[in-house]
């Protein structure tokens, strides 16, 4: 709940803060928690990253967010050539979520390096490039071009469900996923994060496959394939028919998958899916994620990443957690 709640509606005796604020209002103690984490050799000041495709190329959000404060910035998925994306409509709201079928529109890796990266380099947050390809060759070529440009790492999107050749085969087939990871590892000397698709029977098998193939970290989840129909027109609400479901609606599924994955891999996990508040981010961290990515929430509150960061800090102070590492995977039994 946000501060702007209709406080003025309440009587004089009303709690001056909303419940979530009350929960975090306990007196601070003098511990300044160490929130830094190391993901696959990338040093993050804190675990709060932006999710690919929801934060543009950073520039769009710079009026609202001090980019220096972010754990890392992950940019919109890059392909070898620029891509125009899908026809419209591309987005539709769903209960506590949204479907998107952007179709991986992007400026292409070269334009990114030439025109978008210089802006991001002015800030000290590590920049991670999310990449995808129609085949292994494209993945490796994009990775090669990014190598040595000053980015901190590569996130391989094997999971985008929008474009037929855009990764869905890789994302649901452990052998194919492993192939992409091995090829990208070879092509670039950068740390490699593999982003998993939730559209699978067993996320653990996918996670193990990419770990074995040499991925330095795993991020999950990408969107879940969904669909909405305009019953008056009897047409799909998205021109692409299906799209990827994101937002708070999917959070319970994402937390479950992070928890399952954390028990079978040793490489760091980055939790993604429906994070709107610090509490939501903490669910992922307690379930086993070393860092989190914020996606759809950026659209709702442009400075949500900073609020989440602040909330995690407050939580650690309140619970006397000196180092975020104490919290990661600290789920107790019932």
């Amino acid at each position: 709940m946000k501060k702007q709640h209709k406080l003025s509606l309440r009587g004089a005796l009303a709690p001056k803060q909303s419940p979530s604020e009350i929960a975090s209002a306990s007196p601070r103690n003098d511990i300044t928690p160490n929130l830094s984490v190391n993901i696959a050799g990338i040093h993050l000041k804190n675990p709060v990253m932006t999710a690919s495709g929801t934060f543009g190329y950073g520039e769009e959000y710079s009026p609202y967010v001090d980019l220096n404060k972010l754990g890392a910035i992950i940019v919109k998925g890059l392909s070898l050539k620029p891509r125009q994306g899908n026809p419209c409509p591309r987005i539709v709201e769903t209960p506590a979520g949204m479907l998107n079928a952007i179709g991986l529109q992007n400026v292409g890796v070269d334009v990114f390096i030439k025109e978008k990266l210089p802006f991001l380099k002015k800030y000290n947050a590590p920049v991670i490039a999310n990449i995808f390809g129609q085949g292994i060759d494209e993945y490796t070529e994009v990775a090669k071009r990014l190598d040595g440009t000053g980015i901190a790492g590569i996130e391989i999107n094997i999971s985008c469900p929008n474009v037929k050749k855009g990764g869905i085969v890789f994302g649901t087939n452990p052998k194919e996923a492993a192939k992409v990871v091995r090829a990208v590892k070879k092509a670039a000397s950068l740390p490699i994060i593999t982003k998993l698709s939730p559209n699978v029977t067993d996320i653990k098998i996918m996670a193990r496959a990419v770990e074995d193939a040499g991925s330095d970290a795993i991020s999950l989840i990408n969107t879940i394939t969904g669909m909405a129909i305009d019953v008056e027109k009897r047409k799909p609400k998205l021109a692409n028919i299906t799209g990827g479901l994101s937002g708070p609606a999917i959070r319970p599924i994402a937390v479950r998958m992070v928890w399952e994955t954390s028990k079978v891999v040793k490489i760091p996990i980055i939790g993604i899916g429906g994070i709107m508040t610090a509490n939501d981010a903490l669910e992922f961290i307690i379930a086993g994620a070393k860092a989190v990515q914020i996606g759809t929430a950026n659209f709702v509150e442009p400075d949500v990443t900073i609020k989440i960061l602040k909330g995690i800090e407050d939580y650690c102070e309140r619970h006397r957690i000196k180092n975020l590492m104490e919290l990661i995977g600290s789920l107790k039994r019932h």
Partner: protein
Amino acid sequence: MMNSRVLYNKNILPSYYKLGLEIDGGFPDCQAGQFVMLKISEQLDPLLRRPFGIYKNRVQGGCPLGAGSRVQGIEILYKVVGKGTWIMSGLKEGDKIDVLGPLGNSFPLSDGYKNIIMVAGGIGIVPFYMQVASCKMQVATCKILFGGRNKNDLPGLNDFKKLGVDISISTDDGSTGGKGFVTELLKEELEKKGSRGQGVKGSNNTLVLACGSKPMLKAVAEIADKKNIPCYVSLDNVMACGMGACLGCAVKVKGSRVQGFKSSRNNLQLYKMVCKDGPVFDSREIDWEKI
């Protein structure tokens, strides 16, 4: 992004409301055509913000936020069409609402044109209140053509009458003004004046601005195009971020005619973003077949 206070929320016509919002410091540089994204509910359903044009802006002297009031703010004119606007219609004085903006581009300045014709369909009237003010500053003649389904579909009509601007009205059912589509008014207007545009700004002649439903805009664009009169349209689209980040509000453009698209090596851009490249577009830029 700011936490704004509701000053009033008035039901002016069936389904139409005026929402006064206090904006600390106001929106000093705000221009006609720009919009805000409102977070209507703190709950997770509806999840996304909703876009609304800025109807009146107090800073520019147009917003009647109480006579003589020093309150800085904006007025939104909106129509209840779904979940979000339905919730909005329940807002009361003193309620808080989060406002993101002003966003987007604006209508071109009127200088250089002699006649500015503004074509509005229903709620499409919104951007023109501020545009009239700006026209007056530029000493251009302006005329509003306002169409609606019926007499209850002409929101803000009185405001424009008070401005003293020349306004012609049509309704589909003839309940006010002429019976028929507003595009007929436009045809007549262009005939009457014998307007002829050179298709370039500064030609000291007619400029058409339009806001309304997509079919209306398409028809307006065709009429203007035939006469070679420059025409700008304000487009509507579903939005998630409002700032060019999600790429969700894409509109198909005639790629080959777009210039200065340095991002693509083949100099072709098929989509523009309504929130950031728009909401106002040169009508010749739009691929009207794909709208």
